[in-house]
């Protein structure tokens, strides 16, 4: 049976007529994507909330596209009536990233913005939230950025207990010791 996207099409048309300059896509059943420039994000969120019945804000996340020198912010909304997830995506530049503060539309965005400010260093001018969220006295570059080298930082800051540098595959040894057979399907995951 062919899937039909009737309610998704409807949402598509509504957004298409309301906004120019946005790229729309029906990703799959009950998921509609909006690629918008960053000035249009707040209007789209407001429009979705006031006109399209998007009562609930699910998530705001950030993706580091280091190859394109951009951050992508993804706002995920959820409508309990139509049961369609609306993804609003926008790209901002990676150097000096600034995004409009939208926590006046949904208050819970505040928490996500705090997290993203800490983990990616994206600034949201004018929004009120404690500077520190999860990390305390963090002095490096924001840790979720892809150019932050976790391993380097770890080997500088913490000491490793000796004995796991070689990262041996000890399954065989353990199996031999207790006289077990390693099943065939498990052998293909062997590191050797």
């Amino acid at each position: 049976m062919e899937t039909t996207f009737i309610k998704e099409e409807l949402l598509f048309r509504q957004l298409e007529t309301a906004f120019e300059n946005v790229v729309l896509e029906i990703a799959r059943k009950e998921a509609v994507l909006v690629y918008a420039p960053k000035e249009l994000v707040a209007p789209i969120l407001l429009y979705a909330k006031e006109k399209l019945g998007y009562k609930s804000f699910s998530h705001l996340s950030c993706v580091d596209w280091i190859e394109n020198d951009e951050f992508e912010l993804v706002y995920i909304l959820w409508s309990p009536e139509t049961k369609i997830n609306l993804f609003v995506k926008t790209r901002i530049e990676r150097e000096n990233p600034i995004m409009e503060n939208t926590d006046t539309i949904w208050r819970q965005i505040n928490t996500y913005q705090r997290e993203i400010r800490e983990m990616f260093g994206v600034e949201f001018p004018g929004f009120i939230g404690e500077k520190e969220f999860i990390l305390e006295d963090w002095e490096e570059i924001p840790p979720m950025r892809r150019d932050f080298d976790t391993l380097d930082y770890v080997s500088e800051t913490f000491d490793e207990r000796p004995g796991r540098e070689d990262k041996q595959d000890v399954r065989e040894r353990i199996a031999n010791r207790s006289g077990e057979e390693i099943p065939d399907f498990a052998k293909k995951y062997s590191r050797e």
Partner: protein
Amino acid sequence: MYNDNNAQTIVEYIKNFTRKNSLFMLAYGTGCGAIELPATLTSRYDAERLGVRGAATPRQADLLLITGYLSTKTLKRVIRVYEQMQDPKYVIGFGSCTINGGMYWDSYNTIKMLDKYIPVDVYINGCMPRPESVIAGFKELQRLISEGKADGATKYKENLDWYRENQKKVLKNWPLVEYNW
């Protein structure tokens, strides 16, 4: 007639015997391992038959259980908690994360060796340890106590400088209390 040495031994023996059979435990549920504790403490595995039970506050507890990975943010609180506990006090490190970082070995925000920051008497390995191994860990601790070998608190007092140095290495800009024991 009166042998002072023997009397001392007997007193020590009684002290250790009573200590080992009433361990009040403060389970500091830092990581995922904490989920095994309800099972350990309730009717199926019933740790209370070994005299292990929960304590409400650090000051009433003898045993601190660090159940899993410890972020540097939590480490600050754990150090406070440990220092608030009264002597005699014991620490059990629970799960591979406390031993060598476990699967968080390359995480920027969790410590890798718990015994560099507070003295650990017993480690229980496993990710996560089953209630059986937790109980084995309790038994091991009881053995150490009855032999008088669980002396983490003394170690901490004697080597406070070393512990402080390690703690300060990861806890920058955080006031750690100075003691004059």
